[in-house]
């Protein structure tokens, strides 16, 4: 029989225009190609996560994909109880012989868009807007800042967070307002890593005719001409790969780090932002990418360093 799959989204939900959505796209792609379906659930609290994991494990699902660091503890607990079920955890680490943890080197992708931002900024002021002040988001911000500073150390870097509750991911008005405030201070390129609030940011950026940078999935299509690029984080690919490995019997447990080299993160260049990416920018961003791949550039991971060098 075909293996059974399930995806558990975190509180952001399947349509968060961010990593949950990306995960769902990966699973959908797998479904389209293999005609093997999957179950999907969204959880609201950490307690629920455990409940769902257990439920699915009892239903003899072969691979459960848990999206988001919030599910780490629950995955670890349930994985112990159901050694026959396999789990893939995105953005977090859980121990267990039947768990694969996939972490992304957001700092590397963010570095690349930082390089692009530094080159594209005319005012020499670039901004970052994060959803909530958590290590994951700081890692985006820190990688971005490193890219900016490495390109031009005189560039000013401004950063704001939307809020401190989960509402911070769903407050486009505030996301937009933060962008406007930054632009009034002269910022002309803004990287938004703020879920739904980021949509407000990009909208405001477009209204002022400045440049925005999308996150997680390729968001260039949102405002063609006003999107400098997007920092893509290939959660979809990770999910797709895990599903495929189960199907082909090549699945392995363990912690995987996916950076630029592994194709886990990247910058996006397509028809929607072709017009704003000059040949020079393209060349220098790709050069930086190459340097990261061959180790010439080491982008510091904020989560390990606990401090941002830039």
């Amino acid at each position: 029989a075909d293996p059974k799959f399930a995806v558990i989204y975190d509180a952001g939900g399947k349509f968060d225009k961010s990593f949950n959505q990306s995960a769902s796209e990966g699973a959908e792609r797998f479904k389209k190609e293999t005609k093997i379906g999957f179950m999907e659930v969204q959880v609201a609290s950490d307690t629920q996560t455990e409940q769902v994991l257990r439920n699915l494990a009892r239903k003899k699902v072969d691979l459960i994909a848990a999206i988001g660091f919030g599910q780490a503890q629950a995955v670890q607990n349930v994985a112990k109880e159901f050694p026959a079920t396999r789990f893939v955890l995105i953005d977090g680490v859980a121990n267990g012989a039947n768990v694969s943890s996939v972490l992304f080197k957001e700092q590397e992708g963010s570095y690349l868009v930082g390089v692009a931002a530094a080159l594209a900024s005319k005012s020499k002021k670039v901004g970052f807007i994060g959803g909530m002040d958590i290590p994951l988001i700081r890692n985006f911000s820190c990688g971005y800042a490193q890219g900016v500073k490495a390109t031009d150390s005189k560039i000013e870097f401004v950063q704001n967070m939307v809020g401190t509750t989960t509402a911070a991911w769903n407050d486009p008005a505030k996301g937009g307002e933060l962008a406007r405030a930054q632009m009034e201070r002269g910022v002309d390129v803004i990287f938004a890593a703020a879920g739904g609030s980021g949509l407000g940011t990009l909208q405001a950026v477009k209204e002022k005719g400045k440049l925005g940078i999308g996150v997680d999935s390729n968001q260039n299509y949102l405002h063609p001409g006003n999107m400098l690029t997007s920092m893509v984080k290939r959660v979809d690919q990770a999910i797709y790969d895990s599903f495929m490995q189960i199907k082909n019997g090549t699945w392995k447990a363990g912690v995987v780090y996916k950076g630029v080299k592994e194709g886990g993160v990247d910058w996006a260049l397509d028809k929607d932002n072709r017009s704003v990416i000059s040949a020079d920018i393209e060349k220098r961003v790709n050069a930086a990418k190459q340097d990261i791949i061959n180790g010439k550039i080491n982008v510091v991971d904020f989560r390990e360093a606990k401090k941002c060098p830039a």
Partner: protein
Amino acid sequence: MNQADLPRWATSVAMPLLNLLSALLVAAGVIYLLGENPAESMGILINSAVLNPEGLGYTLFYAATFIFTGLSVSVAMQAGLFNIGSEGQMYLGGLGATLVLLALDHTLPGWLLIPAAITGAVLFGGLWAFVPGYLQAKRGSHVVVTTIMFNFISASLMNYVIVSHLIPDGEQSPASRVFAESAWLPKLNSILPVLGETPLNISFVLALVALVIYGVAVWRTSWGYQLRAAGLNPHAAHYAGISISKTIIVTMLISGGLAGLAAVNPVMGSTHYLGLNFPAGAGFIGIAIALMGRQHPVGILLSSILFGALIQGGFDLSLEKPNIPPETFIFIQGLIILFCGAMENLYAPVLSAMFKRKDK
């Protein structure tokens, strides 16, 4: 003719049931519009929330938290105070317990550790409510406003504390480390194995005890008498020698302490770590529960279970019926509060008419 003329069973059983049915009827309509079979859906919901023992376990697990937040709001209401801040007080209560556990979970034995952590939760929750209470009593700042503000402030503060200080090295999830097992609250499934693998733990028993204590304290003690007098007529309470400012401050301390206790269930009974935004609205649901349950212990218990069941059953239902998003049950919660809490007399005229006809 008004409600007072109806027999007791009609006002306390028939009317609430009719209201609940009305709310569910509207909900059924929405489910139908979403393209699912309402009867079947309700069946799934009831089955997974009440009939299935494991589901029941989850229902009661959620209810335990709500009982505490419901009590927190209720006790303040008895004194005429509208404490909207239970959410923030619960959040801080979680911090209180966590700090105790992080400091002591490797040194103290469980039987000492758990009470110490619970004390920490009560203390932090209480102190977080003390400030608004004090400001109301001494400076006349509206407790409604200050507690709303304190909710926002607690969110910022907790974010700062967790993200900047509590995340263990090498971890990135915004949560404290997992506590040692000695700090985990004993689960009820060790006594009642039929409950299956549910996080239902002794804090549910604690919640029931709290309900009884609350009932006795408010209706049977001189303290409760003074509390209610102050709530109903502060001028008369002053005349009766009851210190209003003391009552306000003490009540807020207790209210906050109860909200702090609400944190014990999820933090020490389920996740075993302090996570960002773990109250997840339980403090606000406490307001609904206090209002719907008329601040009465039985009412609080029943509405807490009802809300627990909605969360558990609704979640399972949305698992089975992808057309029904979990948010549908947020809508249904609202409807139930509206019908049972604010339109309690909707059917009074109809029932009165029925009785009149029978009289003649």
